[in-house]
């Protein structure tokens, strides 16, 4: 899977899944922190990203504690998806 394409897709999906109406994909940097600073997402957004991983990429994050690492940025999300693609239903 092409990482650049994946990151571009992820930005669009994040905006839709999280109702970030004021943002466009080009507003989200690859390395920009998604939580706390950066986009300022919160705990419910983190849960929605877990749903996104499951529905779009069939990857199940069953331990919420892994969240902060995986969802650190669009890049870390893409890397996690590439590493786990095909592992879980």
């Amino acid at each position, binding site marked *: 899977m092409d990482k650049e394409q994946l990151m571009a897709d992820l930005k669009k999906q994040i905006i839709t899944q*999280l*109702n*970030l*109406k*004021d943002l466009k994909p080009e507003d989200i940097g690859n390395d920009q922190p998604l939580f706390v600073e950066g986009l*300022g997402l919160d705990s*419910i*957004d983190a*849960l*929605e990203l877990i*749903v996104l991983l*499951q*529905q779009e990429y069939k990857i199940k994050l069953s331990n919420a504690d892994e969240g902060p690492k995986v969802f650190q940025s669009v890049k870390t999300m893409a890397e996690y998806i590439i590493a786990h693609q095909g592992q879980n239903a």
Partner: protein
Amino acid sequence: MSNALYIKASCVISRETVYTNDVAVYGLPGAALPNFLQGAYQFFGCNYPKFHKMDNLGKLGFLASELVLKPSEMERYAPADRGIVLANANASLDTDLKYYETVHAMASPALFVYTLPNIVIGEISIRNQFKGENAFFVFNGFDATFMHRYVTNLFASNLVQVCVCGWIDVLDDQYKAVLLLIEKEKPHTGELFTPENFNKIYQL
């Protein structure tokens, strides 16, 4: 000592129109609810990205509260002295239905959050730091006498020094929000808080 209470400000959102203090200030005739809410949010220059994550009940309540509350005027009240009392007929049913649609694939946590009618109180409280008593009732229909008595008793018991009260209801494309800001001091413009005045505003 007067126990009189006054309606400092009011907002009604109904039939694609927003009224503040009985005057229509924004309208988007024929618009579906989501577009109307988005239009109002932009028109009033609101800057609160969390708005877009709220459900329709939350958005209605939030918009109405933005129009009756001015942060600078709330500063003189301690957060624990600011109260909110709301009611409606449909509880959170509008969102319950939308949430339940997602359960078949994968339940949406963001929608589940709004499957309780009092979350709209939470949103208004977070935005305006209202930490005093808050209540949400589910009634068959709007009851000005009940609301008036409940709020009056809160002031009389010194539990609140300022209070937001009203009716926020939505189910599908049927919606109505009526919100009042009640204070003890007689405002420059504004009327006495009575069931009759409350009903008049509701019927706008």
